[in-house]
C-alpha cells in the first residue's frame, strides 16, 4: 500500500521543518562575525611595495581606466625614482590587470572589503597610503607565493553533516583589526 497519495507529503514536510528547529542557524552576524574571504579576492584596494617598484609604469599603461598616476625622475644610478604613485580607487573596477602586468610583483590586490569613505577625495590613495600595513594586506590574486600563506576561505556549503552543524571559521570580535579587515 502506497502512502504517497494520502497526504503523507504534508507529514514529511512538517517533520523536515521540525528538524530544522534543532539545527544551528546558518546566519553569519556580519559586523561581529566574519567569514574568511577567498584567498584570491580582488579586494577594494591595492598594496604597493616601494622597494620592488622600478617605476616602469607598466601598471599605468595596462589600466583600462587610466586610474594609476606615476611621476618619476632619473636617480643617481640611472634608475627611476618614483615621486608620485596615486590610484583613484573610486574609479577603479578592480579588474587586476595592473597586478597581472607588473613584472616585479611590486603591486598586489588587497584582502580588504570595508573601504567605504565619506568623500570622493579620500578614495584617491597616495604613495604612503598604498604601502603594506596592519590593515592593508595583500591577497593571493596572481601572486601564488602570497596565496600559499593565506588561510583557506570558509564556505557556507562546507557543511559538516555528521556534526549536524556548520563548519565555519569566523573572525571573532577581538581580531577586528587583523588580516582581511
Amino acid at each position: 500500500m502506497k502512502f504517497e497519495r494520502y497526504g503523507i507529503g504534508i507529514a514529511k514536510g512538517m517533520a523536515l521543518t521540525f528538524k530544522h528547529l534543532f539545527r544551528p542557524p546558518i546566519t553569519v552576524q556580519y559586523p561581529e562575525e566574519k567569514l574568511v574571504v577567498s584567498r584570491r579576492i580582488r579586494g577594494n584596494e591595492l598594496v604597493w611595495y616601494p622597494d620592488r617598484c622600478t617605476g616602469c609604469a607598466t601598471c599605468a599603461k595596462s589600466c583600462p581606466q587610466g586610474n594609476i598616476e606615476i611621476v618619476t625622475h632619473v636617480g643617481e644610478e640611472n634608475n627611476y625614482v618614483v615621486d608620485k604613485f596615486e590610484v583613484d580607487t573610486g574609479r577603479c573596477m578592480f579588474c587586476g590587470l595592473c597586478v597581472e602586468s607588473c613584472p616585479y610583483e611590486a603591486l598586489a590586490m588587497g584582502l580588504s572589503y570595508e573601504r567605504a569613505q565619506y568623500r570622493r577625495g579620500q578614495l584617491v590613495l597616495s604613495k604612503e597610503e598604498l604601502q603594506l600595513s596592519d590593515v592593508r594586506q595583500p591577497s593571493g590574486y596572481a601572486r601564488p607565493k602570497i596565496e600559499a600563506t593565506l588561510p583557506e576561505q570558509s564556505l557556507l556549503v562546507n557543511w559538516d553533516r555528521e556534526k549536524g552543524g556548520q563548519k565555519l571559521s569566523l573572525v571573532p570580535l577581538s581580531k577586528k583589526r587583523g588580516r582581511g579587515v
Partner: protein
Amino acid sequence: MTLLEQFQLWLATMWPEWAAYVTPAIVGVVIVIAFALCMVMVFIYFERRLLGRFQIRLGPNRLGPEGIFQPIATAVKILLKEDIVPAKGDKVLHWLAPLVVFVPVLMIFAVVPFWEGAIFADLNVGIVYVVAISSVSAVGIYMAGWASNNKYALISAFRAVAQVVSYELPVVLSILGVVLMVGSLSLTQIVAAQTIPFILLQPLGFIIFFLGTVAEMNRSPFDLLEADSEIVAGFHTEYSGMKFAMFYLGEYCHALAYSCIITILFLSGWRGPLLPPFLWFLIKVVAVFFVIVWIRATLPRLRVDQLMSFAWKCLLPMAVINLFVVAAEVLWLPESLPWVMVVVNFAFAGALIMLWSKLFTLGGGRVEV
C-alpha cells in the same frame, strides 16, 4: 459565579449600586484588553523568532536580550509613518475598516475563560457568540478592499468573503460535535465537561476545526487574500501607519483568540496537573500557536479553486459525517466507556481521511478539482 461578579457583590456592600456595577466592568475590560495586547506582542515576537528557527535563521535578536523589544520598535516605526488615504478612495470607509476588523476580534476575549471563574461574561451561549462575532471581521476586510479603490485590494476582499463564508460551515459543524457531548454552549461548561480532552474524543472534529480556523484567520497556507505574489498585499495594500497596524494587530489578535478557543474546546482549557490553571492555559495557547506557525513555515499557499474545493468537498462532508457519528455515540454508547469512544473515533478519523484523500487523488497524486 465569576470572579468579577464576586468583586461586584463585595463592592456593593460599601459603594452605591451604580458604582458597584460599573467599576468591575471597567476593571474587567482593562484586564482582558491588556492581556490580549500583551499576548499579541509576545506572539509577534514568538512567530518571528520561530519562523527564523524553522528556516535555519536567527530571527530578530538585536534589540534587548534576544531581541525581545523588537515588537515595540516595530510598533513605534509603524506609528511614526505617514497615514496615506487614496485620493479616489472612500475616505469614511477607509478610516472605519481597521476598526471593524480589530474590535470584533477583541470582543471574542469577553467570553474566554482563563481559569475557573476568570471570565469577563459567562454567557450561556458563549460559543455561538464567538462564531457570530468573529465573522464580523470579514465585513471589515471587505470594507477595506472596497474603500481602497484598488483592484488588488478588491480581489483580496472578494477572496476573503468567499473564504470566511466557506470555512464558517465546517467550523460550526465541528463545534456542534463538542456541544453535543457537553450539552451546553457555555465555554466554562465545555471546559468543565472535559475529563478527557476532546482532541482525543473527537480527533476528526479537532482537525476540521483547526484547519477551518486557520483559514478563517487568513494565515498560511490559506492566506490567499494577502498573497503577495499575486495581489501585492491584498486588502491592506493601500494602508499605512496606524491603520495598517490595526490590521496587523487584528490578525495576531485573531490568531490569539482562536488559539484560546481551540484550547478551550479541544485541549481542556485550564485543566491540568501540578501547574496553576492560568499557566496551563497559557502553555496550551502557545502550543496551538506553535503548530500554526509550524504549518506556516512548511506548507505553500493553496490555489483559489483548491481552497474553495477543500472547504466544500473535503471539510464540509467530513464535518457532517463527524457530527452524525458523534451524535450516534452520544446517543448509544454508555458514558462509562469514554476510551472506547477514543479508539473508535481515531480509527474512524483515519479511515475517513484516507477515503477523502483517495477521492481527490487523480493523476500521480496531484490534487485535482
